[in-house]
C-alpha cells in the first residue's frame, strides 16, 4: 500500500528533488521521493548533477 502511494513520475520527482534543496519536505513527499530514487538511475543522476552545480556556485568567486 505504501508502494502504491509512493508511485511518482520522474517529472514529479525532479520537482521534489529541487524543493528538497530549499526546504524540508513533508513526510509523505520524502517517502515518495526516496522510493522513486531507489528505482530510478536518471533521477539519482539528476540529483547528483544539481548538487555538483550547488557546490560549484558556492565557490564561484573564490579563485
Amino acid at each position, binding site marked *: 500500500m505504501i508502494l502504491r502511494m509512493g508511485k*511518482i*513520475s*520522474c*517529472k*514529479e520527482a*525532479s*520537482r521534489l528533488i*529541487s*524543493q528538497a*534543496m*530549499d*526546504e524540508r519536505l513533508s513526510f509523505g513527499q520524502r517517502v515518495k521521493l526516496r522510493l522513486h530514487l531507489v528505482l530510478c*538511475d*536518471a*533521477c*539519482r*543522476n*539528476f540529483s*547528483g*548533477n*544539481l548538487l*555538483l*552545480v*550547488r557546490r*560549484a*556556485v*558556492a*565557490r*564561484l*568567486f573564490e*579563485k
Partner: protein
Amino acid sequence: MAKDFRKEVEALRPYLVRYASIQLRGTDAVEDVVQETLLAALAAEATFAGRSNLRTWITGILKHKIIDVIRQSSRHRALDAVDGEESAEDFDALFDETGHWRDPPHAWPHPEDALQEKQFVAALEKCLAALPARNSQVFLMREHLGSETAEICKELGITSTHCWVLLYRARMALRACLEKGWLRK
C-alpha cells in the same frame, strides 16, 4: 589611513565588479554598489584590523549592498512579478506523457583537476548569464548569498510557490545548459 590598506582595497575592485555584475545583471547599479562598498571598506579600516582575509570581509559588505539593491528594485517591480508565476510547465517538453525523462540525465564526472574545474566554472558562468535575469537573481540569492527561501520571497515580494518555481526553473535550465556546454564539448 594606511596607504597599503587603500591600495589593497582598490585592487579588489575588478573582483567586486565581476561579483556584483552576475548578481545584478540587467540593472545599472553595479558601479554604484561597488563604489559604495569600497568607500565603506575604507571608512571601516579600524573594524577590519586583525581580521585575516580582506577579500572575504569586503565580499561580506558587498553582499549586504547587493541585497539592499535587490530589495529596493523588487519593490518597484512587485507588480510585474507575475512573469513566470504560471508554474513549471515549460519543462513539460523534457518529459513524455507518462512523466519519464525523454533524455535521462547521466551521472556527471566530477571535475577533478584544476583545469577541468576551471572549464566547469567557465561554463557555469556562461549558463548563469543565459538565464532570465530574475531567475538568476533568485537562484544566486539562494545558492550564492545563501539566503533562506522564505527570506528571498519576502525580499522580492513573491509567493513561496513562485519562488520555488523560479529555483526549479533555474536548476533545470542550468543543468541542461551545462550538459550541452560543458559535458558534450
